[in-house]
């Protein structure tokens, strides 16, 4: 039995028949090596233990979280949860705990990434820095190993473990910066030198940048930009809670996107990073959100599913009652065109390497404002002809992927960094007919 399963079982046993109960225990090690000005300035690691318990006694619900797992501390956690629940009014929308169900046997684990030593991360950082050949490097390399178990009082049990490694960084020339990102289940897949080379190349291309007039431009967006678009659609749109509350753009069965847009939540596929069950113990499966441009799915936890008269899709998390369930193992369908092909098809437009500081102005229309960063380039007659200073945009993300606006999909689908972090979206580059830039970062 794994340590996390032992903790989760002990908690549920302590609750006994006093309440419905569900427990999630997580153990692991997270480490992150951070560099700036081409040296390692922050280097951290931690051993983690967390246990989350939710109880429902006669429809009165409360949740507690802690990181002490000796018997006395777990008993205090259990007693505290039951006491908190007893003081509450009945929750008329409590959906009950998940029944026993088979959980897919998926392990996204690389044995070589379960116990990475700091020297391995430092070596990858060194490679990234050296690839800049004198440019100023900044970024991070992180690794993690987690083991997570779920147990509830209905007899549902599930355990999974996962590993993850990333490198993300920029090179700076003094007047420009370029970025690169890699994420994988295995540290062996991470190539610090290749990432550093790409970042340095983008940084050098970014020199002698000039301002361009705000307005509507055709764009080619990197996987990082597409990942940010799609994670916004997921958090603010494909959430069952947002749909129930009338705050989402989602209209099931309606062609809300261009016919080439395919978006799936797929935590189980090979090369993915997802966990095969959620924090309510519901097994995960592939969930189609957009098929050929038609909105076809919504992510639910048990609560939002009950309200909608649907079934949970396995997207609960400890805060989903408040923030809503979230699909975060997203895959965006790619195409057959290389990035060079996408650029070659543009008469006059802009290539964007990353977005920065995106914030939603209205969830229903998905109008978002943000900036470009670490690589904004003018495209003329199918070629990148120069670098642009950063631009601010104010753009509906739904309209961006709408019918007629999606002109090309890249063949470069990969895990991309996003506004909400890394490891959530696998996305390709995209060519879009129009993107609304509203100003420059310099004025």
């Amino acid at each position, binding site marked *: 039995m794994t340590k996390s399963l032992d903790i989760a079982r002990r908690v549920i046993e302590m609750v006994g028949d006093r309440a419905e109960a569900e427990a999630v225990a997580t153990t692991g090690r997270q480490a992150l090596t951070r560099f700036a000005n081409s040296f390692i300035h922050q280097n951290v690691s931690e051993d983690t233990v967390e246990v989350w318990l939710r109880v429902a006694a006669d429809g009165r619900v409360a949740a507690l979280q802690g990181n002490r797992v000796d018997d006395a501390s777990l008993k205090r956690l259990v007693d505290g949860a039951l006491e908190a629940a007893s003081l509450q009014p009945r929750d008329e929308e409590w959906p009950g705990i998940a029944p026993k169900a088979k959980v897919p046997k998926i392990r996204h684990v690389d044995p070589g990434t379960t116990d990475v030593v*700091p020297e391995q991360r430092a070596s990858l950082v060194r490679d990234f820095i050296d690839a800049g050949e004198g440019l100023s490097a900044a970024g991070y390399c992180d690794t993690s190993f987690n083991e997570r178990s779920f147990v509830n009082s209905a007899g549902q049990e599930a355990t999974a473990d996962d590993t993850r490694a990333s490198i993300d960084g920029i090179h700076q020339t003094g007047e420009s910066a370029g970025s690169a990102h890699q994420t994988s289940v295995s540290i062996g897949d991470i190539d610090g030198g290749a990432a550093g080379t790409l970042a340095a190349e983008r940084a050098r291309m970014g020199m002698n940048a000039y301002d361009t007039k705000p307005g509507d431009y055709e764009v080619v967006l990197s996987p990082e930009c597409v990942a940010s678009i799609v994670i916004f659609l997921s958090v603010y749109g494909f959430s069952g809670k947002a749909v129930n509350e009338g705050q989402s753009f989602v209209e099931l069965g309606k062609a809300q996107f261009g016919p080439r847009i395919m978006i799936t939540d797929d935590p189980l596929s090979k090369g993915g990073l997802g966990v095969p069950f959620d924090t309510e113990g519901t097994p995960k499966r592939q969930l189609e959100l957009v098929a050929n441009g038609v909105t076809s799915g919504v992510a639910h936890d048990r609560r939002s599913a009950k309200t909608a008269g649907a079934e949970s899709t396995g997207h609960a998390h400890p805060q989903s009652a408040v923030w809503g369930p979230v699909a975060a193992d997203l895959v965006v369908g790619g195409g057959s065109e290389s990035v060079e092909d996408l650029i070659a098809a543009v008469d006059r437009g802009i290539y964007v390497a990353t977005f920065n*500081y995106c914030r939603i102005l209205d969830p229903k229309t998905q109008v978002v404002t943000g900036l470009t960063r670490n690589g904004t380039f003018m495209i003329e007659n199918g070629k990148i002809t120069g670098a642009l200073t*950063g631009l601010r945009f104010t753009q509906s993300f739904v309209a961006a992927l709408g019918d007629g606006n999606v002109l090309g999909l890249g063949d470069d689908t990969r895990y991309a960094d996003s506004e909400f972090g890394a490891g959530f979206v696998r996305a390709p580059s995209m060519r879009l007919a129009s993107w609304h830039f509203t*100003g420059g970062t310099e*004025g």
Partner: protein
Amino acid sequence: MFELAEKAVEGALAAGAKYADARFVEGRGEAIEVLNGRVQSVDRNESAGVGVRALVGSSWGFFATPDTSDAALRHAGERAAQIARASAVAPGDPMPLADVPVVQANYETPHQEPSLDVSLSEKVDLLVGVTETMQAVDQIRLARGSLGAWDTRKWFVSSQGHRISQHLVETGGGFAATAVGEAETQRRSYPQSFGQYETGGYEVIRRWDFAANAGRIAEEAAALLGAADCPEGEETLILEGSQLALQIHESVGHAIELDRILGWEAAFAGTSHLELPKLGTHKYGSPLMNITADATLPGALGSFGYDDEGTPAQRVAIVDEGIWVGVLSGRDSASIASLPPGGMVRADGFNRLPMVRMTNVGLLPGDSSLDEMIAETEDGILMSTNRSWSIDDKRLNFQFGCEIGWEIKNGKRGKMIKNPTYTGITPKFWAQLDMLAGESEWVHWGTPNCGKGQPMQVAHTGHSASPGRFGTVRVGVRG
């Protein structure tokens, strides 16, 4: 509890660290959410553990563990030193630490009524009542209320002899009404977006008097559905206090972080438009602009006794009559920049590395008032309560959206407007500050969700502000 941190420090020193410090931190928290008269969640959390930081050569290493056995604590110290040695694969210049007083002290947040001791039923009843009041207004589909509290105890030990214990008490909450229309949603919040948080106990909540404001907030949200859109163009802009507080946070607070100025946050949070050689001469804004970073303000969310390096809380001048004069710093960054250490290094829990964070970065009050500003404005817009925020990595180009606005015509508040937004460039914007309300309208606004660092850390910061007027600003930016 000092002995737990001491063991970790001993482990680091035995493993070759030339300096080490450690914090044992016990934290408790509570979050209550109510939607439409029903409790959505009551979450409580407890955590405890030790984080140890070791300096070997010019490199830092940090390790954290919740295991407080003797062996685990010594091992944590050793691991921190081992990680620091690994950092030498990509070494930097020597990392000196600025001198600070070595103190043995304790501190407790002044408070009257610990929030975690107030009965759950009283807190739930308050939120249920407030949300039911809002729901009674036509077109209000979502009425939310929330309360939160943190109770944190820390014991800090350094190899230089620091022994500091602190008990920090923080409380806050708020509510919001959302009206859902055909193709839009409109929201109003109180006391501000995400609620108002302060250092102190439940007396904070009682003082803001939620019940007296719920009806007005709901009426405003419903009315916004029928309001005119914010006009596009250049206008005189009046910002109420909480929006001005966020403007300070984003366009001043982050820009003056010395780690950003030194390039340590370049890849993620970004750098700054400020350059150290211009400290003391750079014009940040109009002469009405006087900013301090003051960790000693009673009640403000960014107040404490000592930072997480053991440096005493202090008040530092940041902008003096429009001229940039100060930064936010810690012992290493201040030493590198040859500046006095500001005592502004904090960590989000035992398991995070302390880093430069805002304390209470606030705009000192002026001598006007909101009423006077309106009366002296021929043509302008008053905007209130943040709805969205975005700013670039140098903290220059920003765009904010607010929940509500009103036209100002001929010295009078006119019709309500919806979707108000404004955009600008930091020094140009602050140069436009021409009226500032006085002390009676000066509030220690709190920001409980300031993200920075990798792994991500969330800090609680304060921003004192009163309403202010800006001469000419671009408003009404739309997609």
